C-alpha cells in the first residue's frame, strides 16, 4: 500500500522505512472502513433496537459499552454510526475536492481574467465563517444526509481551490508543460495527462484532512440536533445523551472516542503524506 502510494506522488519509491504514523493512520482507517461496511454482521443489535434494560453501565453482560436511556446498545450505535460519519465525510470531501479542483485548476491554468474572477469569489467565500454558512444553508435546504453533504462541500471547496490554483500555476510554468504546448498537445490532454497526475500528491494529503474536517462538521451538526434525526450518527448519539452526562456518562464518552480515533487516523495519514512530499530537506542550524 505504502509502495503504491509512494509511486503515486513521488518519482522514487521510498527506500526509507515506512513512516510509523502513516502506517498507524492507514491501519486505523482500514479498520474503521471494515467496521462500517460489515456493520450488520458485527453489531450485536440494531442501532435502534431496545435490547436490554436502560442505563446499563459498560462491561454489563451482552452490552460491552452499556445501554442508553431507552435500553439501546451503545456499541451497536457506534458501529452503525461509523457508516454515516464515513459516508458523509468522504462524500462531502469528494464533492468539495471536485469543485475546488475544477475551479482552482481553471484559474491556475488559464490565469488572467478567469483567474481574477474565480479567485475573488473564492476569497469571498473563504472569509465567510464556514460553519455558520453551512448551518444557514442547511436551514434553507432542510435537514437530510444529502443536504448536509452539500452544505459541507459548499463551504469546504475554497481552500482546496486555492491550493489547486497554486499547484496549477506553478506546474503551468514548468518546462515540460511548455514543451507539451509547443508539441501541439491540446489543453485537455495537457491538463489530464500532465497536470493532474503531478498534482495528485497534494490532493490526497488535503483530501484526508478534508474528510476529517467534514466528519467533525457533520458530528457537530448532528450534535446540535440540526441533522437528520432518522440516521444514527456519533454526533447524534452524543447530542441526545448530553442531558445524561451526570447519570450515564458512557453514552456520550464512547461515541466521542470513536469520533476521535477516526479524525486522528485521517490526520495521521495527511501528515504522513505531507512529510513524504516534503522530502529530505536538511536543517541549516
Amino acid at each position, binding site marked *: 500500500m505504502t509502495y503504491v502510494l509512494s509511486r503515486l506522488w513521488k*518519482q522514487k519509491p521510498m527506500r526509507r522505512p515506512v513512516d510509523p504514523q502513516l502506517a498507524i493512520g492507514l491501519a486505523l482507517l482500514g479498520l474503521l472502513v471494515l467496521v462500517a461496511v460489515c456493520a450488520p454482521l458485527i453489531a450485536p443489535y440494531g442501532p435502534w433496537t431496545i435490547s436490554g434494560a436502560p442505563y446499563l453501565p459498560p462491561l454489563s453482560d451482552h452490552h460491552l459499552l452499556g445501554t442508553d436511556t431507552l435500553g439501546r446498545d451503545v456499541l451497536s450505535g457506534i458501529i452503525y454510526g461509523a457508516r454515516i460519519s464515513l459516508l458523509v465525510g468522504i462524500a462531502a470531501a469528494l464533492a468539495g475536492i471536485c469543485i475546488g479542483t475544477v475551479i482552482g485548476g481553471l484559474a491556475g491554468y488559464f490565469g488572467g481574467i478567469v483567474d481574477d474572477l474565480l479567485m475573488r469569489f473564492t476569497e469571498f467565500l473563504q472569509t465567510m465563517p464556514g460553519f455558520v454558512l453551512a448551518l444557514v444553508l442547511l436551514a434553507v435546504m432542510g435537514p437530510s444526509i444529502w443536504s448536509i453533504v452539500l452544505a459541507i462541500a459548499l463551504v469546504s471547496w475554497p481552500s482546496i481551490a486555492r491550493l489547486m490554483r497554486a499547484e496549477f500555476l506553478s506546474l503551468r510554468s514548468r*518546462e*515540460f508543460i511548455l*514543451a507539451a504546448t*509547443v508539441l*501541439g*498537445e491540446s489543453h485537455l*490532454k495537457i491538463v489530464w495527462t500532465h497536470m493532474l497526475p503531478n498534482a495528485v500528491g497534494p490532493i490526497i494529503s488535503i483530501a484526508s484532512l478534508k474528510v476529517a474536517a467534514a466528519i467533525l462538521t457533520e458530528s457537530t451538526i448532528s450534535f446540535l440536533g440540526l441533522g437528520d434525526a432518522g440516521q444514527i450518527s456519533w454526533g447524534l448519539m452524543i447530542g441526545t445523551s448530553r442531558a445524561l452526562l451526570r447519570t450515564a456518562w458512557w453514552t456520550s464518552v464512547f461515541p466521542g472516542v470513536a469520533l476521535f480515533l477516526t479524525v486522528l487516523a485521517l490526520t495521521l495519514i495527511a501528515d504522513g503524506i505531507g512529510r513524504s512530499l516534503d522530502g529530505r530537506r*536538511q*536543517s541549516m542550524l
Partner: protein
Amino acid sequence: MLNVRYLRIGLPVGGDRGFAVEDISFDLAAGKTLCLVGESGSGKSVTGQAIAGLQPKILRGLTTGSIKLDGVELSGLTQREWQAIRGRQIGVVFQEPMTALNPIMKVGRQLAEIYAAHGIRLSRAELRDRVHALLERVGIREPGRIANSYSFEISGGQRQRVVIACAVALSPKLLIADEPTTALDVTTQQQVLELIADLQQESGMGVLFVTHDFGIVADIADEVAVMQAGKLVECGSKAQVLKAPKQPYTRQLVDAVPCLTECRPCPVCRPAPLVVFKAVCKHYSVAEGLFRRRKNPALTDVSFDICKGEVVALVGESGSGKSTIARCLTRLTPVESGSIQLEGSDLLALGGAELKQARRRVQIVFQDPYGSLDPRQKVIDAVAAGPIAHGVDKDQARAEAAELLRLVGLNATVLDRFPHEFSGGQRQRIGIARALAVKPDLLIADEAVSALDVTVQAQVLRLLQDLQEKLGLTMLFITHDLRIAAQVSDRTVVLRNGRIVEMGATEDIFRRPQDEYTRKLLGAIPGMQAAERSYAASLQ
C-alpha cells in the same frame, strides 16, 4: 596555515555512496588561493562547509579527520567553540546571494550583529561607522543607503558584496568561498572575483575557492585540488594541473572546457532566411496596486534573421531578453508589435490548426534537465507524444521514438523508464529526441547545456552538432556562456536589456567586437586572459 588531513565525511545509510568525502588531505598557505574543483556531487561543497563546521546536522557526527587552522585543531569542536572561530577566523561566502541574507532584516543590522556576536562592544555611532566603512571596503558606493535597505531592494551583485562583507568583517585568516559567482552574470562575476582578490591582497588571508569552472581556476588559483566522487584526484600548482595534468580525469575536465580560440569559420554566403524578426517589441506588465500596471520592456525593436542550416547564437546576461525571444518564436507569449515570419508566413497571425502546424516546425530544448520532462511519463511516451498529437499512428510513433532515442545515444532498454532514473545529460538527450520527433525546421536550444557538468556539457554539445550536420537542422542557440556560443555558432547576436547591441558572423564578433558592451562581456569571460596569452603564444 590551513592543514586538512584525512578528512572523511560519511553519508547516512541509504545514500548513493558510503562517503561524501573520503580521506582527503591538502594544505593552504596564508595569502594564497586554493581552488577546489569538481563536478556536481564530487563533495567539494561539503568539504568547504566542513572546514567551517557548517556541514548539515546529520553529517556532523560522521565527520572524521583533522582540520588545523594555524596549528589549532578544529575538528571535534563543540558548536559553542565553533562560534568563536566562525566569523572571526573563518569567513564564508555562499553561492546564492538572494537567499543568503535575512529578507526581513536591514542589511546594516545583519552586518552589525557580527560585532556583538564576537563580544565587541561598540556605541551606536561607532557601529554605524564600522558598518559603513566595511560596505565601502567591499566596493559599495552608497553605504548609508545600502545599510538601510532590505536584501530584496538591492541587486544581486550588491547582495554578494554584502555577504562578502559579512565574511571579512573581522579580517579572518581564511575565507571559504563556495561557488560565490555561479549565480551571477559574467560581468558581475568578474567584479566579485576582483574584489575577493583585492581583499586577499590587503589582508593576506588564505582563500579556499570552491568552483566547477576551470576558467575561474585559470584566473585566480595558486593551487588547484581536483575532486571526483568524494576523492581528491589531483592536487598541485595551477600551472602543473592545468597545463600538464597527471590524471586522465583532470585532463578530461580541462579538455571539456569550451575554448574561445577555435571559432567556426563564417559561411561565405547565406541561404534564404527561415525566420525573420522585424522590429519586435514586447513588454511584461507588472501589477502595481489594484488597478495600475507598470510596463517593463522585455524586447525593444529586435530585428534579426536565421537562415536555413545556420546555427545562430543569442548571447546576453540575465534579463537581456534572450529567453523571451524563444518564447515569442514558439508563441508561448504574445508580442506587442513587430512581426515574426516563418518562411514568409506571419507567425503572429496564425491560430488554430495553422498555429499547431507552425509550432511543430519550431521546437525547443529547455534548460532544466529536471523540469523539462514530466516525472510521471515514460520516456518513450514523452518522445512519442508530439507525433501522436499531430495525427501519427500510435504504434508508428512509438517505433519512431525508439529510433530517435537510439539516435541521441540512448539504448532500447531505457524506453519504459521514468525520467528520474536518468542523469541530467541523459535527460537532455531525451529532451532533444522529443523535440526532433515532430521533425522541426528550427530547433531552439534555450540554455540547453547550462545546467550540466562540463564533461556532460561537452558530450551534449557534440551530439547537437552531429545532429545539426546529419539532419541539416537550423538552430537557435541561446546561452549566457560566450565560450559555448563561439564553439557552436555560425552567427552571433548579442543582446542587452532587450535590445540587440551587435550581431554578425561569430568569428567577427569574437575577434573584432565593435560594441563597447560586447568587448566588456568578452573581457569578463573567466580564463580569457590565460587563453588569450596562450593563443598569442601559439600565433608566434
